[in-house]
């Protein structure tokens, strides 16, 4: 049995320091849920292949005081910056807390507004935040999600205004950097943010993660995105931190006919669990979900996706591809739900995997739950290894085995890479993958 008393202690501290907070009641309710549900074990159907209970065994510190954060030097920040950062809105989170001194919002106030969640609840946006914060609780009924909700405090609320420039233009890209500072303590960071893309707005979001220090870190991060009518949202998640343990949840709630394009990319990590939810709650939503996991060592990646079709005439497409080498384990669990109302739904899902080593493994479960009859839904899944004929073809033409392998793997990954729409970001990711494939040889 794992000792979770340290979490209780941290929770009491947090509640004591913010007693009259608007968020306090939300936290209490979530914490009660957490105490009831606990950390899910392998017997929990949604956590069957991912053991997280041992991750909670450390006595983690929850967050540091602001002064302790000064020690992060500029060169480290520059090293993790994404391409095009000088023309982006950059938000830095250290151990789950939004650090405004490091962040730079370059957009004007009539394009984008960033305020902390407690402040947002006192502002004009209070009604919006109250309505949408915690929508994900209805879909993720486990202790870990409740745990994040019980510690909501330091996150931000972002309001994206409708786009005013020429059609086709995007706002500045919005970059989230989640940094775990584990130089002195084991850290459990729980960032929680909410983005509201107003009707007709267009936004491109990228989240990335980094670690300083060598102590254990666990990140239980949640981002909720509300996508209103005629809004356009692109979302990219890049996970490339050695030994980082993450539970990363992204929850899209499409409230009207809108477009979402979400992609997650996992290249490195310890135990990683990604929950990606797409709630299609408006007629005629268009949603695209992509993922690539290219892992080795003892990395464990678990991608759980949910596409919940609640209204008629929605279209969704999902493609996840994985390459597992050495002792890596991959998990894919894709669920498509079609509710009774959601007639004329088109939903496609595909999961393709390559195993490169005899010690690597994959557990995949593409799942359909359909309650409407006038739908077209399909899912497919494959597991295999590199095609011997293709390898032979390349080698017969004088390409060394190593290069042939890298070429084929890159081609396999390309289906996902081409879905990264911003050129700069795509080139950056392509470079990461090319480096990785050659280093591996």
């Amino acid at each position: 049995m794992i000792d979770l008393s340290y979490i209780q202690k941290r929770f009491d501290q947090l509640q004591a320091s913010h007693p009259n907070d608007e968020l306090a009641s939300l936290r209490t309710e979530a914490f009660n849920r957490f105490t009831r549900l606990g950390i899910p074990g392998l017997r929990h159907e949604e956590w069957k292949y991912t053991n997280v209970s041992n991750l909670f065994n450390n006595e983690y510190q929850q967050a540091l005081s602001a002064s302790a954060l000064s020690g992060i030097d500029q060169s480290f920040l520059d090293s993790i910056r994404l391409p095009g950062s000088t023309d982006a809105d950059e938000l830095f989170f250290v151990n789950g807390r939004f650090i405004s001194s490091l962040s730079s919002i370059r957009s004007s106030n009539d394009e984008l507004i960033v305020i902390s969640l407690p402040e947002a609840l006192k502002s004009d946006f209070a009604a919006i935040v109250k309505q949408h914060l915690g929508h994900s609780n209805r879909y993720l009924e486990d202790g870990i999600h409740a745990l994040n909700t019980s510690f909501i405090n330091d996150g931000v609320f972002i309001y994206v205004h409708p786009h005013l420039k020429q059609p086709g233009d995007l706002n500045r890209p919005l970059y989230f950097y989640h940094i775990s500072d584990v130089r002195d303590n084991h850290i459990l960071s729980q960032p929680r943010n909410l983005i509201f893309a107003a009707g007709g707005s267009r936004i491109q979001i990228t989240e990335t993660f980094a670690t300083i220090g060598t102590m254990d870190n666990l990140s239980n991060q949640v981002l909720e995105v509300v996508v209103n009518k005629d809004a356009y949202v692109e979302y990219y998640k890049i996970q490339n931190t050695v030994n980082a343990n993450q539970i990363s949840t992204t929850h899209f709630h499409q409230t009207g006919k809108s477009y979402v394009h979400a992609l997650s990319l996992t290249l490195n990590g310890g135990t990683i669990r990604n929950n990606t939810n797409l709630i299609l709650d408006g007629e005629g939503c268009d949603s695209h979900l992509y993922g690539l996991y290219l892992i080795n060592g003892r990395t464990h990646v678990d991608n759980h996706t949910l596409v919940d079709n609640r209204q008629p005439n929605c279209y969704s497409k999902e493609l996840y591809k994985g390459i597992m080498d050495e002792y890596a384990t991959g998990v894919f669990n894709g669920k498509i739900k079609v509710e009774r109302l959601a007639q004329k739904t088109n939903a496609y899902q595909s999961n393709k995997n390559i195993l490169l080593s005899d010690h690597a493994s994959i557990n995949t479960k593409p799942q359909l739950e359909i309650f409407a009859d006038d739908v077209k839904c399909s899912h497919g899944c494959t597991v295999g290894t590199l095609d011997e004929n293709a390898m032979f073809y390349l080698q017969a033409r004088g390409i060394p085995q190593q290069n042939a392998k890298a070429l084929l793997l890159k081609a396999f990954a390309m289906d996902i890479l081409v879905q990264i729409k911003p050129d700069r970001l795509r080139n950056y990711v392509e470079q990461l993958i090319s480096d990785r494939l050659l280093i591996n040889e």
Partner: protein
Amino acid sequence: MKDELSTLQQTVLKDYKYGFVTDIETDTVPKGLNEDVIRLISAKKKEPDWMLEWRLKAYAGWLKMEEPKWPNVAYPPIDYQDIIYYAAPQQKPSLNSIDDLDPELKRTFDKLGISLEEQKRLSGVAVDVVMDSVSVATSFKKQLEEIGIIFCSMGEAIQNHPELVKKYLGSVVPMTDNYFAALNSAVFTDGSFCYIPKGVRCPMELSTYFRINAENTGQFERTLIIAEDESYVSYLEGCTAPMRDENQLHAAVVELVALEKAEIKYSTVQNWYPGDKEGHGGIYNFVTKRGICQGYRSKISWTQVETGSAITWKYPSVILKGDSSIGEFYSIALTNNYQQADTGTKMIHLGKNTKSRIVSKGISAGFSNNSYRGLVRASKWATNARNYSQCDSLLLGDRCGAHTFPYIEVKNNSSVVEHEATTSKIGEDQLFYCKQRGIDSETAVALIVNGFAREVMNQLPMEFAVEAQKLLAINLEGSVG
């Protein structure tokens, strides 16, 4: 084509055709389950001590287990103390020929469309009819005996071939494998036993007709088929049951063992009482079926057509232990009104170069829910394992549900596993095409559904294929609109 349609029309009957109770005095034990009941069953069957001990051990295991809650089905709790665990039709102690059969019993089978004499004379099928847990007639036994095949009831096998039963009973489905298998191990009353010796190809299809008769009797069948090296057998199982208001529990266990280069083909047509249109009554069918490909290049093939039962909970599985062994699963599951089906298969690849193939077709209509739940596992040692799975669902009506839960676990890099699934409804254009040619919508739907299920139908032995096609049409009656 025209012939096929007219047969369909003839057989489209509005209500459950096989709903009647045969009035035979039955010899039952008191309701409820405890050690004494198990001792009584064992004593009534004149079983040796080792069998009784086995049952008691299973019962002890069962007491410690909990009813599984994970299937995607809902039903009121079952009171296991309200079930009669043993009922045998009373008849003369021994039968010399089929003519000695109780005339009442005989009429029952005639109504079901099984004429023993006719089958014996014409089709060359040996029928081991199980009615209320005791085999009442076994035919063609002599002919089979001549080539060394043992085909008898489980009770007889325990008496006459204890060494085989001891060796294989519970070897594929351990007595405490799951809740219902444990219950079955404790109280099973009869079933079929089949042993095919080395190098023998069984010359005829072996079949059993199960039938639940006495009121409040759960039927706990136990079937064991052993195919020795280089042998072949095709086994047919067909089920119908009379109409009943109270829910009845059926928890059978089927075990198949295929040794080196042996092949077992197991086909099922299940048409038990599904409950009325409001979802009252009907059979609970909680069955554990599993086969093991023990030897090199052995093969096990499951084919099932599931149209009946209020609840079906059934996963015919294959453990591919021998190198280069093959497992197959072909299934049609049709649910209508308030039926629920949670069915699928498990293919456990352990040996090298093992292959498996899964084709599952689910058809849901009315208010029913139909789930496919399957597992394909390639272990670390199962190099070059190959699996192909396909599960398609067809939805008729907007109040039904179709669900797919495929689990795929691969632990080595030379295996290739593919899975694909689709869900759709009958295309308007297909219906229009048929109607335009003067086929009414009901017949058109039956035609399209039969086409949808054709891939599985083709796997059925001839006599079953015809029956199965009729069943699909009967069960779809009234669901189109």
